[in-house]
């Protein structure tokens, strides 16, 4: 490939493999889902599906559970991503220092992330268990509570408990991503700052933060999308209950799709979530436009 002749088409050549694989696999299912959302499609009666236009979407807007789930989704995404980022950032900065067992610490911190969601869900359910849970036992021993609490059955505590499990699972992601980002910060910059007598905090604000900002922003964006769509841990821990207390949008769509097999309605619910996420991405892309086009 000579650069002179291939120039205008070169970037597309580089893109082709990735586009080809994703497009073959994902285009058809996505198109299908959009078609479902415009029909009263029931999985067990595919032949009876009729085109209903925007009726599913209008029904979604009138559905009380949609709004409850949406509110929970906002709390869910905001809370989890923020906590994961904060904890991950601290962990990454610490694991970037040199101490003799750093390699081991880095390998151990990844463990929560290395476990399948179904195990995480079951373990945390068991930890939170009213009768045989270790959390109640520990808290009672150290005197924080005087009788066992039904953590997962409390309409107010249930969502927080499931979120804690997800924060635990996902903070190593940020730790590792940021740790990799820190490696791109030239050491010379710290040396220069040191000579200028900058404090550790000022070094972080003026040297570290700007250098990793792009990577952190991308990681946050990807994480928002991932957390917004994740439902397996909720499904295992509470199934969305008690009542609607841990219903998030994908969970509600899941229940409508698989318990009711109402694929039309569920697809409309899912697409509402997609549109909301698109708005976030749009904001991000606009903000990052300068960097993206840099």
């Amino acid at each position, binding site marked *: 490939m000579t650069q002179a002749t291939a120039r205008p088409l070169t970037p597309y050549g580089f893109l082709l493999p990735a586009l080809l694989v994703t497009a073959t696999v994902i285009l058809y299912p996505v198109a299908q889902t959009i078609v479902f959302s415009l029909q009263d499609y029931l999985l067990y009666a*595919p032949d009876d599906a009729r085109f209903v236009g925007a009726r599913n979407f209008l029904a979604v807007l009138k559905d009380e559970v949609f709004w409850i789930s949406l509110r929970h989704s906002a709390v869910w995404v905001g809370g989890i991503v923020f906590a994961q980022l904060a904890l991950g950032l601290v962990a990454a900065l610490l694991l970037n220092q040199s101490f003799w067992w750093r390699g081991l610490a880095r390998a151990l911190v990844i463990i929560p992330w290395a476990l399948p969601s179904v195990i995480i869900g079951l373990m945390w359910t068991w930890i939170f*268990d*009213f009768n*045989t849970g270790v959390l109640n036992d520990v808290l009672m021993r150290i005197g924080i509570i005087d009788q066992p609490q039904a953590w997962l059955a409390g*309409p107010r505590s*249930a969502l927080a408990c499931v979120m804690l499990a997800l924060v635990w699972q996902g903070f190593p992601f940020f730790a590792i991503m940021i740790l990799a980002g820190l490696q791109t910060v030239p050491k010379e910059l710290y040396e220069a700052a040191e000579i200028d007598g900058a404090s550790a905090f000022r070094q972080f604000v003026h040297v570290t933060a700007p250098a990793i900002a792009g990577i952190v922003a991308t990681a946050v964006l990807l994480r928002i999308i991932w957390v917004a769509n994740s439902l397996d841990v909720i499904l295992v821990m509470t199934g969305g*209950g008690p009542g609607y207390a841990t219903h998030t949008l994908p969970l509600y769509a899941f229940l409508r799709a698989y318990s*009711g097999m109402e694929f039309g309605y569920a697809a409309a619910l899912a697409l509402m979530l997609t549109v909301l996420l698109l708005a976030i991405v749009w904001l991000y892309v606009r903000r990052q436009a300068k960097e993206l086009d840099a």
Partner: protein
Amino acid sequence: MKRRTFVKLAGASALAGGLSAPSIAQGVATVRWWYHYDNPQNTPAALVAKFEQANPGIKIQAEAIPWGGGTDYINRMFSSVVAGNQPDCAMVRLAYLSRFSQMRALEPLDGHLANWAGRSDISDDVWKLNRAPDGKQYYMPLHYVVIYLYYRQDLFQQAGLQPPKTFDEFLACAKALTKDGMFGYGMRGGGGCHDNWGPFVLGGGASFEKGGMVSAKALAANRFFVEFATKHKVVPPSAPTDAFRQIVDGFKAGRTAMTIHHIGSSAEMVAALGDKASAVPLPRGPGGGGWTYFGDESNAIFASSKVKEAAFRWISFLSGAGNVEQAQLSGQLPITTSGGRNWTGHPKRFVDASFASLPIAQTLPDHVKTPDFVGRVLPTNLQRALVGETNPDEVMKAVEQLFHG
């Protein structure tokens, strides 16, 4: 790992198929069968070997599908039907019969059954339960469980109580045994709560007929059930999200004196509590009516199968000569009368309680909405009532709305 062990393991994973391509040899029919057993160490390999020896022209490819709370198994099955990749036969539940019928996915078995000698060894009641609305038999009954009441013999004795025969006695027992951090009744309000709700609400006069959920009797029965949690507080505070794992653990740990489940958990209960754990049929309602859940499992043949005759031979073997062995693998009760008579797979007191529960045992209605009732509408609405977020009557209105619009 030594190569030999690896080969052995690979063989175990491929158990009776999976790795082997469908046979194309003349006269050999390969039957793909999907199953789920609770215990992953139990495999149908021995059963398959026995069957294949007796039927040299048939190969069985048995594939374990994860149950995943029911969703995964069903999801996989319906996707396969949509994609045209379904097995020849599979374990199925009555709750999905309507949906299968609507898709015309299953083969009626009536022609095969007419000439099957084993038919009379399965009781007429079971055949009736399994019959589709169009009068045909699509399901070959396989094994079953019946929901009954587990209670702590020792605690009842200490308190001078008898196992409850009526709802009021049940409440009295639950109140008497709720003390010192122990709860009278380990209620299941999480996934699968219909098997705790049904005995009191359907047994107390509610029905799935039009208007049957919102009659005065039905509303009162549901209120009685919800008040175990909200008024009398005889259930653990965790009850709204407790599923089978939690109610069984709570009972095993000695934190509840009664709980409602079936013979499938008896082995665990006995391992933890020995003779202290026993069982009786569920109490009856004010009018003497009662209801308990018949947990069914059948095999069905898919209409798309090219080897229906061979598939029928396999599933009729499982419900006939192989039924007792099959029930040992699944941990449930054999469906055959002869198999049930001398059944030793569980301690006798639990088998007796199961048999004694049969007169009031029923399935949920054969309706396309039933899975939605079990999986979403009942749990969410019941839980809201149990934590006091809504009036108990809302549960009944929601169920009525689901089935009758």
